[in-house]
């Protein structure tokens, strides 16, 4: 028995040593070792997978060119919940040198002194307001200072299925529409949507012309298409009881009133996730939706036939892009089963309205290599680099100057639509509100109450207005208390 136990113990020990040795030899290790003599800039970014690899490509190019020349080496690290982890690391005094956040965090982080201001460094590199499209520049600033520069910008447009428009041409015509073009006003969008709706034998929604819930990512920004916003930055007041804001959310509600909230939520439950083949727009069960320019990439990945409607059916992505170079933009567009157009405004005065969002590069407060970190951010903001990453991620540009190459040979043949939208005076970004994450949660539940018909639009918005204004006032009061405490301490 003793011998058996000893043998068992020795076997287990041997296995453990072997496993440790295998781990040492083949186990995980640093993928790249920074070259000696260079300042290492740590860069935390949200992207993984293809998008992460594409950003890594930009980082490698920087390291092999500007980085080599100036003695800088950027180390890219994909980090989940990058906003929270950046904040915790900043509080602990060990922040990354560059962090890739979302637009929603600029005001919140800046108000908490979590970011380094970039004004002077940007100015020294020639990056000023003229260099950016106004909507994006403004969104990178908070209380008059610049807190971040964009890595990839985007905007929202109406995406529509041209094939289904053709198949249901008669129904669209009967509704007073023109199947050869997308709707141009909200009222026309509603008519198209109703004409395109299809129900199954049990009366459930089978095909939806348009559904505010799908994908529902931009519902909080609906007032933009009604010439309003939910927050007035000048008076620092929420404007949820403004007539145009009420009108915007009442329009969302009208879909619930027409289709029934259960019909809408059931349709949503049956639809697949965004990045799968069951995405209702890709599956042809949703004819029109609000989406960003990245849609061309996702369609290419999940349902490539939609990007090869009439020709190039057997060509792979790169071969198709090469073949498309010989075509005009109009000819290219004709080969796509879907189209993109400005999302219709409620009034022609708001033509060109869109929500302009972006991913942003910031330098967290306490970064040890600010100057070197900014060198990288400035590199990403060079026109040719910005156009490269935006082409890879299938997004528009945030810069004033855009090359013909970018406009004509972008993987998304509708990129001009997005470029025009973000250049419009009616383009808007997330308002500079320091409690924006709280606002989004409050608005999401308010919007749910509206489309589930739990409360009237006015009631739901009035309650949200009171709550949010109270939260904001409390935030401002605490900021003032802090300033007073700081002044007292200095005295």
């Amino acid at each position: 028995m003793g011998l058996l136990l000893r043998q068992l113990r020795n076997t287990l020990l041997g296995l453990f040593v072997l496993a440790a040795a295998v781990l040492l030899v083949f186990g995980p290790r640093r993928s790249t070792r920074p070259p000696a003599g260079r300042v290492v800039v740590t860069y935390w970014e949200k992207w993984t997978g293809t998008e992460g690899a594409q950003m890594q490509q930009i980082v490698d190019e920087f390291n092999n060119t500007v980085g080599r020349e100036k003695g800088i080496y950027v180390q890219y690290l994909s980090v989940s919940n990058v906003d929270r982890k950046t904040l915790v690391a900043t509080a602990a005094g060990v922040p990354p040198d560059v962090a890739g956040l979302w637009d929603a965090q600029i005001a919140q982080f800046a108000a908490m002194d979590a970011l380094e201001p970039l004004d002077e460094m940007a100015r020294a590199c020639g990056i000023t307001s003229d260099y950016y499209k106004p909507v994006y520049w403004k969104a990178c600033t908070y209380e008059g200072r610049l807190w971040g520069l964009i890595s990839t910008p985007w905007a929202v447009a109406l995406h529509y299925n041209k094939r289904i428009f053709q198949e249901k041409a008669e129904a669209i015509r009967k509704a007073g529409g023109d199947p050869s073009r997308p709707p141009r006003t909200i009222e026309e969008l509603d008519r198209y949507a109703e004409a395109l709706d299809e129900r199954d034998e049990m009366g459930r929604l089978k095909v939806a012309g348009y559904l505010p819930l799908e994908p529902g990512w931009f519902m909080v920004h609906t007032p933009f298409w009604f010439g309003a916003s939910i927050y007035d930055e000048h008076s620092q007041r929420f404007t949820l009881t403004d007539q145009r804001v009420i009108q915007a959310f009442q329009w969302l509600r009208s879909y619930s009133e027409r289709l029934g909230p259960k019909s809408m939520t059931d349709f949503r439950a049956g639809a697949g996730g965004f990045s799968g083949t069951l995405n209702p727009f890709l599956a042809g069960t949703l004819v029109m939706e609000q989406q960003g320019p990245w849609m061309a990439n996702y369609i290419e990945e999940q349902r490539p036939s939609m990007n090869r409607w009439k020709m190039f059916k057997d060509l792979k992505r790169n071969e198709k892009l090469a073949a498309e170079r010989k075509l005009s933009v109009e000819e290219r567009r004709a080969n796509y089963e879907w189209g993109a157009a400005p999302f219709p405004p409620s009034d022609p005065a708001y033509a060109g309205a869109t929500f302009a969002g972006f991913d942003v590069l910031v330098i967290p407060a306490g970064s040890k290599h600010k100057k070197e970190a900014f060198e990288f951010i400035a590199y990403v903001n060079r026109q040719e680099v910005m156009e490269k990453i935006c082409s890879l991620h299938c997004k528009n540009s945030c810069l004033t100057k855009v090359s013909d190459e970018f406009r004509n040979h972008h993987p998304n043949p509708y990129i001009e639509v997005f470029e025009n939208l973000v250049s419009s005076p009616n383009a808007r970004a997330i308002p500079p509100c320091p409690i924006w994450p709280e606002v989004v949660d409050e608005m999401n539940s308010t919007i749910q109450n509206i489309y589930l018909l739990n409360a009237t639009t006015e009631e739901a918005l009035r309650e949200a207005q009171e709550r949010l204004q109270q939260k904001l006032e409390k935030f401002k009061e605490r900021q003032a208390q802090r300033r007073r405490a700081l002044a007292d301490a200095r005295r």
Partner: protein
Amino acid sequence: MRAAELRQLGKGMAFISPWLIGFIVFTLLPVAMSLYYSFTDFALLKGPLPVGLDNYRELMWEPHPRGRFGDPHFWNSLKNTFYYAAMALPAGMLVSLGLALLLNVRLFGQAVYRTIIFLPSLVPAVASAMLWMWLFNSKLGLINAALMSLGVKDPPGWLSDPRWAMPALAFMSLWGVGHTVVIYLAGLQDVPTELYEAAEIDGAGRWRRLWHVTLPMISPVIFFNLIMAIIGTLQVFAVPMIMTGGGPARATQFYTMYLYDNAFSYLKMGYASAMAWIQLLIILALTAVAFWSSRHWVHYQGK
């Protein structure tokens, strides 16, 4: 204390120091700090600003324009948590006890049935949440498919209808009763057979034996499970976070979820700490009530 005893104490302390240091650094200190932070405005980057009872006032009794008091989402999340506990706690206790009684009956394949009942408890919370999301899916889910085959024309949107979302989550919580069943089974096997024999001689039937012998004898186990269930249901977080995210329209926003949002989305650490202390006091109070009531219904064999 003699020198030898001191040396012994030193050695003892040295042996337990890994746990002791870990407990002090990672549990006791954070708990004490959270009490301090609950009286401050603290957003990680800026040092805590003392605000007295302001966080508690804002949560519970600050007046609002419509005659309401405190943070409506705080009260709503507290109400939701109690609503869930009122369904999940008794249902969980009854179902687990019932299953344990059935599994205690000697029959062929008893071990297999016990394994089947226990298996779901081994499935990670995230995996079972994903599984139940599909089961509850209003259009493609098996539950609604079964209801429709039974002639229900318009079965509910389990997770998308504010009226059904909470009962659905409470129902789903029964999926993980395996652990409790095992504890009940251990208690049931500890009941002396001579008591059943004596009761049988006295003419007690099955129900009387259950009521007058089994339940009093396993009452300490029931009490233990009750305390654990109170704590568990009032702290529920991961499953509803994955399945509903607190929606629709905050109908399933639990206390812990709102606390998490305040701490990690809105970065209001002081406010979240105050919420954590209120939660602790509520759980303490309910546990104290359970302990007080136990004098009347919990019977220990030694006494």
